[in-house]
């Protein structure tokens, strides 16, 4: 068998997909991928190909998500669900260390960060971009987060190019998809027709090539490449939403007193759902959990959100008391000041915050409303933003 190199393309027949899946497990990977749970496609540990949402798709709208049967047996015929891969790299609750008291002294035991290597099967282009963002957040600074870094170093990223766009998708606007670039381990493009149900497979890394060593593959014909390109092009042309990102950082910065913030604050429930489903929102709070005689104290980290009143609580009161200030903080950070902090936008265009907002607040609409009448309260803005 010829050894595969980065950039090689092969065809994987649908009938051989179980062999590919088995190869991942044989290589020691814990395979995480899409599966149906409680009426949605979520990411969870998969044990067999049948765990995938075969023949299902999702219909999304602002504040709305429903599963629907497809007319075919596509393995990846849906868009994105309520959960992101972030929960496997950056768990919702994580013990960071444990301290033990010994008389007047104490010792700290770091949390072990070992675990099985993970294979994320079915990452979308926007989600790969999301992981690039969280890589910068957790590993880009002077001190890398040990848990995140350990899990990330054991990660195999298997992407699937989207065969269709969802109603809340806008990856084209954010420059993150739907085509998958080079920073990945393996890329699949699912071809349902013409010809037999198959996948065009592209090797993105040596680790990706390694798992394919014993998987039956056939050479890719030029037409396979053309079909895959056409699929991605069609998806790119049918984005459910668009966002004009030109000068967006300054647009938001110069409109901190725009009346639209008040309008959105009236609708915003401050429930945190947008931040929980966002692939890049990373805020957490840390808490000490002592036992009753404080002989042992555990330090835990759990997901927090800038929409929580307590998020900015200092000496007994919150800095951002109003819903307005919290929504504005979130959006101006995500689309604007994130660039100053991490060198990219914090938004990857997946549309989850639109779908999973119970009242369907759509950030693309909010930005468009501000762009339509910038400087609506320019006089007030010169005084600077109130908290």
């Amino acid at each position, binding site marked *: 068998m010829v050894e595969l190199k980065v950039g090689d393309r092969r065809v994987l027949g649908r009938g051989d997909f179980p062999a590919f899946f088995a190869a991942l497990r044989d290589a020691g990977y814990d395979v995480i991928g899409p599966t149906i749970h409680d009426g949605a496609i979520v990411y969870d540990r998969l044990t067999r190909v049948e765990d995938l949402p075969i023949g299902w798709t999702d219909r999304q709208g602002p504040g709305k998500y429903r599963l629907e049967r497809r007319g075919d047996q596509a393995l990846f015929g849906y868009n994105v669900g309520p959960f992101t891969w972030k929960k496997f790299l950056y768990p919702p609750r994580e013990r960071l260390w444990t301290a033990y008291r010994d008389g007047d002294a104490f010792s700290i035991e770091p949390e072990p960060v070992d675990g099985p290597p993970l294979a994320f099967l079915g990452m979308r282009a926007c989600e790969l971009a999301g992981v690039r963002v969280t890589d910068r957040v957790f590993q880009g600074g002077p001190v890398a987060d040990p848990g995140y870094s350990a899990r990330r170093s054991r990660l195999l990223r298997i992407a699937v190019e989207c065969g269709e766009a969802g109603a809340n998708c806008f990856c084209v606007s954010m420059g993150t998809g739907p085509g998958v670039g080079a920073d990945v381990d393996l890329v699949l493009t699912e071809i349902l027709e013409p010809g037999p149900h198959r996948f065009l497979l592209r090797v993105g890394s040596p680790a990706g090539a390694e798992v394919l060593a014993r998987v039956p593959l056939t050479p890719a014909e030029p037409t396979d490449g053309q079909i895959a390109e056409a699929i991605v092009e069609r998806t790119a042309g049918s984005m459910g939403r668009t966002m004009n990102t030109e000068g967006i950082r300054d647009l938001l910065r110069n409109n901190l007193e725009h009346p639209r913030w008040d309008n959105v604050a009236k609708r915003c429930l401050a429930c945190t759902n947008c931040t929980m489903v966002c692939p890049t929102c990373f805020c957490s709070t840390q808490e000490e959990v002592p036992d009753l005689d404080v002989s042992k104290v555990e330090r835990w980290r759990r997901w927090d*959100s800038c929409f929580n009143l307590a998020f900015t609580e200092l000496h007994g009161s919150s800095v951002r008391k109003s819903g307005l200030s919290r929504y504005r903080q979130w959006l101006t950070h995500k689309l604007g000041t994130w660039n100053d902090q991490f060198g990219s936008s914090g938004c990857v265009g997946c549309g989850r915050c639109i779908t999973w907002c119970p009242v369907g607040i759509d950030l693309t609409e909010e930005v468009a409303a501000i762009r339509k009448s910038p400087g609506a309260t320019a006089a007030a803005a010169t005084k600077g933003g109130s908290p």
Partner: protein
Amino acid sequence: MPVHKPRVAVWKFASCDGCQLTMLDCEDALLAIADKVEIANFREASSAVVEGPYDLSLVEGSVTTPEDVRRVKEVRAESRVLVTIGACATAGGIQALRNFADVDEYRRLVYAQPQYIETLATSTPIADHVPVDFELRGCPISKAQLLEVISAYLTNRAPNVPNESVCIECKRRGNVCVLVAHGTPCLGPVTQAGCGAICPAFHRGCYGCFGPQGSPNVPSMLKELGELGMAPLPMYRVFRTFNAMAPAFRSAADSAVSEEDAP
């Protein structure tokens, strides 16, 4: 910290005892607590009563009788720290529905000898009568939060009990949103976390047992419930439950129906 073992007392006012049972339900953790403290008064667990003063009083139930008004002041006077536990003690409980009705009429209808019933026209939270150091929400309270509060006061630190929404618990737990994915009316966005998002985990909407979250947006929630097909009367009723007297939920019920349509 006192030199003697901290003395903990549990008091009951108008309530179903469910929150005290939550404490008994702590099992192993309760034994560990019992080892660290002197349980001075806990009628649900033991008939032995130790005289005050108490280092920590846990108060269950609401104030519904003239006797309660007197007794709650006594409990406060004997307690270094007073923590109220559960929806009755923190918001008046389900029995606070009397606050919106005519208690005399109830008394005449329910009791054969109404002259023997001595009751107030209202059910009110403990904090309406005496200063309260901390209010633990829930109907019933959560075991984990109760242990956290006890442990916090025994070690002289602030309890870590977030006032965030139930939604954040759903997402941390891995629940799929019943409102967005199933179209089920759910009070999670306006309700305080603490229960672990139990109802949504079983495909039910949140009933608001833990009362309003830190910054509830009631008008937006009502609009959304209406869009999910909930009629004004059910919307009114869903906020008139265990936390009916919590200001945000009270105003939610009041806004759900017009005054003449209110039952």
